[in-house]
């Protein structure tokens, strides 16, 4: 088990908290309130770190673990913020057989984070994605809007240094 606490410092504002508290106040007495509250919370903060989950727990009476269990169950929720640059590696069939798995591994190693996480400086987040329709360029990754194709593991350093 890796620690699932984000290493990026939490930068929530009082305005965001007020917004979240308002949502909680609105929804907490209805049945099945947790999902909509979490969805709104993720809209407000972009992700669901322990600080946000604690606010929800304290104000709904739902145990923190129960909230965490729901957050880790659904792929739509993230424990980590998005970095300045989001690196998406296509793990669709065509890219995968062309070796995108190795590229993904190399990126995790280089950035020191697992897929889904964000580097402590908030610069890069890494995620896997499914086919982006550029199979002719396989294996493919994107950095925000930029697309890189026909990659090898050796290209990883170069791409990262472009944004660092």
């Amino acid at each position, binding site marked *: 088990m890796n620690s699932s606490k984000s290493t990026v410092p939490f930068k929530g504002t009082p305005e965001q908290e007020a917004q979240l508290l308002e949502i909680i106040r609105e929804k907490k007495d209805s049945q099945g309130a947790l999902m909509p509250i979490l969805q709104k919370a993720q809209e407000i903060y972009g992700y669901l770190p322990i600080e946000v989950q604690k606010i929800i*727990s*304290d104000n709904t009476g739902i145990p*923190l673990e129960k*909230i*965490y269990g729901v957050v*880790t169950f*659904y792929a739509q929720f993230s424990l980590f913020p998005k970095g300045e640059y989001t690196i998406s590696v296509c793990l669709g069939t065509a890219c995968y057989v062309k070796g995108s798995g190795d590229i993904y591994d190399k990126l995790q190693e280089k950035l020191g984070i697992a897929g889904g996480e964000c580097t402590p400086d908030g610069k890069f987040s890494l995620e896997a994605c499914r086919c982006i329709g550029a199979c002719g360029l396989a294996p493919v990754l994107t950095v925000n809007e930029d697309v890189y194709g026909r990659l090898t593991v050796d290209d990883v350093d170069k791409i990262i240094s472009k944004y660092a």
Partner: protein
Amino acid sequence: MADITVKINGVELTVPKGTTVLEAAHSAGFEIPTLCYMKEINEIGACRICVTEVNEGRGFRLVAGCVYPCSDKMEILTNSPKVIEARKKTLELMLSTHDKKCLSCVRSGNCEFQKLCKDYGVEDADKYDGVRNEYCIDDSAAHMYRDNNKCILCRRCVAVCGKTQGIGVIGANERGFKTYIGSAFDMGLGETSCVSCGQCIAVCPVGAISEKDYIKEVLAAIADTEKTVIVQTAPAVRAGLGEAFGLPIGTNTEGKMVAALRKLGFDKVFDTDFSADLTIMEEANEFVERVQNGGVLPMITSCSPGWVKFCEHYFPDMIDNLSTCKSPQQMFGATAKTYWAEKMGIDPNNIVSVSIMPCTAKKFEIGRDNQSAAGVPDVDYSLTTRELGRMIERAGINFAALPDEKFDDPLGIATGAGVIFGATGGVMEAALRTAIHTLTGENVTDLPEVRGTEGIKEATYKVGDLEVKVAVASGLANAREVLEKVQRGEADYQFIEIMACPGGCVNGGGQPQVPMGIRNFVDIREKRAKVLYDLDASMPLRQSHENPAIKEVYETYFGKPGSHKAHEVLHTSYVKRSVN
């Protein structure tokens, strides 16, 4: 409710509408195996070991017998080749991710999963090879460890923590093959607001969670000739220990337990019932003082360390309502290392104080602040009933054949009031017996209003001019309900007894595990509690203040209840804790 007729394995049976297939089969004499199912607590039909063939007119199909309701004219097959095959396959699939270290597992021999594999003739434990999740053992809590490599994801621990105890510090994280039971943000259990009640251990079917075992340390102390090793046994231990040796639930093993402890080499075998009587003297006095001097009310008992920790985490604003009395375990240790040590001329540093408890929170309690009356810990090792069972077994002692022996004097002398501490309502009854005597001179020994296994009991007693409103709660979800009522100003109790475990200590987290297949149909709380109430009824002295050893300890050492000395040795303090 209307009755319906079903046919189980060819036998016709009439059952009330709403009866599950499992319950109907049970009343027809056919047991359907279960793993995840706990009546009224965990009815999720998830593990699929209970699959049973039913025909509701459209041919036979497999359903989860534990939760599937019977319908009229339903045909049920609990033991067909298809059923056996399906259950066996489920077991084989569970085994594919199970750490099969049965030879070194604490549950070997009373593991529900192991028994099912044997019953269903699983020949190849490695039938389905493949990826296995590997987990680190979480030993961050004072009282237990979790080894998820052995977890079968039945979620019984999750249900009992969340529903019965209203705490919910453990749950299922992630999903699918990656699912594991843990705490929020992978905190160690010791970092959460776990109260150490151990109910999760008591319901775990396998060896995934267990108490931290201190048998080795205790045996080393016994072997050390410099040390005087004394042991105390909580009331509920005598009502549960027999189960570790195959005796029926509800067997009183007090005499054999004492004999076994002596055979194990303890220098003195004492009784926590003695210090339960002492607790009553202090607590009844504290209660009368609070009532007369306008102290904080309602006063709430502090015997159950799981409850005390719960109060500190979840009701920090009510810690002043807690009685300042140490628990009987700690009062015993404190008295042994001060009064008794002085009396015997033994340096408290050379006394090793061991307790046998039906409880895992006691392991946490011995390490709390302000529990060292003689400058050394009041209690050095707290073992569960289960650990004592293992110690006796390991020593090759034939428990069933032991003669009945008596506790040593003077810390083994007790009254019936001390004995009933182990059942919900017992502390309240014992305290009221003495409080009533103090205020009116009357001798009252039976207060049936506060007895029984209901989660919340209320009663009002007229004590002299005083009207005393009391409440008794066991199980922490029930405790929460009572306290919230108090906080909302809807109840004006003066005295509340709370025990963390449902039914009180007899059903403590440290008692021998009873397979859920039995617990779903037998109330173990009631059977074990009966042992204590029968003992109480049979004793010549049934009020704590009548205990001659208690009289002596006050005459020669403490002076009177609530004295300065008594406060130094027998009382403690609490801290506010956060919720995680």
